[in-house]
């Protein structure tokens, strides 16, 4: 899932490049650039989600010293 998310991110980049090349109209170009960025953020969210799932499956051992709010 993490790698799938990372693969989606370049797709958003190519969408942005395609918008530059294909659309001379400023409005349409801006819309597609925003869409490209949204695709990238979606890919990043999937990658982060994948990272969290893997962390939950194999958490490192250790005692709990949770202090309400963790300051690193």
């Amino acid at each position, binding site marked *: 899932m*993490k790698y799938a998310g*990372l*693969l989606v*991110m*370049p*797709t*958003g*980049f*190519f969408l*942005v490049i395609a918008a*530059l*090349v294909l659309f001379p109209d*400023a409005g349409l*170009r*801006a819309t597609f*650039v*925003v869409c*490209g*960025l949204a*695709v*990238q*953020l979606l*890919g*990043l969210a999937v990658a*982060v989600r994948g*990272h*969290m799932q893997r*962390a*939950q499956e194999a*958490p*490192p*051992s*250790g*005692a*709990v*010293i*949770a*202090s*309400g*709010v*963790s*300051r*690193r």
Partner: protein
Amino acid sequence: MTIPPLVVPFSDSMFVLALGLLTLAPLAIAGVALLNTGLGRSRSAAQSMLGCVTLVAVATIAFAVVGTSFAGVPGHTLALAGKSWNWIGAAPLLLRHFDLVQPQLQLEVLFEFLAVGLIALIPWGSGADRLRLPAGCAVTAVLAGGVFPLVAHWVWGDGWLAQLGANFGLGAGFIDGAGAASVHAVGGLSALAVVWIAGPRKGKFPKEGLATAMPGHNTVYIVFGCLLALVGWLAWNVAGAILWLHAGPSVLAKTVINTFLSGSAALVAAFTVTRSRFSKPDASMCANGWLAGLVASCACAAIVTPLEAIAVGAVAGIAAPLLVELLELALSIDDPSGAISVHAVGGLWGLFAAGLFAPRTGQLLAQMVGIATLLGLVFPLVYLLFWLLNRVIPFRVEADGERLGMDLYELGGGAYPEFVIHRDESYR
């Protein structure tokens, strides 16, 4: 406000000023080194600080050997859709052309040398307490020899991002006054890749309950690092404005003021946020807020008004502590130095703000294309390179190394031999 004119004669006095400023810029590197060390644990302090010096050395050599070639001018171009895409530098390797180029270009190379020193320390701080020194050197060599030069060429070497204005009518093209993209965003995204690959510190995320608190070991280092970084950042931003934005004397004082204002607003914002969240201000988060404001100012200090600089800093200062908390508590990302929140997010926000507050039509779109390139192309590329590198030189130290601390394990001695080091509660 207007963006400084792109062609301003580079007089001898400007050359001397830029050279003088660049000799002060290493103070930013020293400040970040102190922050990294202070935010790590006491049993890894010597390894952290030695690592900072070593990585700066490795970065400098890697950049001199291959990086200057990829970053330099002229460049290789591709023809696509009737446009010229200058995608990589084609200068001779090993700086063989250095004596032949104009003094202004020599200063630009000097700026990039200092930039690779700073970029090396960003992922190093995030990998604190578990990233091996040889792996840190390898990561630095990849960043300084390959990734940074590529991005620097796109942004500063008349590359395709810089030419977005000429080729597609997007403002003045992608603008980055002092390294918000090529140094901080790339460094911060590299930090995320390193943290993902190396994993969290042992005991950081227990099976049950919240994340374990592992506070920085020396608040004085952290805050003094902020003060050192301020001096370096002022020099960095003004030198960047002269070299990359071709700013005239009328812009320079404003750049200094805006840098200061951005950092100050960010500190006040971080102070307020942490005080309201924890009932008392948190020194390390305030330091991160301060640095996030300075990072954001890198992109736009020369082109925004003082009021806009305050707004840029305030947003960075509010975001930094909240993101540090979000990454740690909600997303299970262990980033001891906060580099992802400070450098990646702060840098990207600064770049966006440079477009938001620029008066030229299409400048915001140019900045968004640059941000999309960093997120969609550079980050996956960096992750892939580091993932492969991890197969050859494992990033993470062995379990014994984490138990003993990086100082004893990698250096054979601690940073504070006359003091008792607290036992790690997570190993009971």
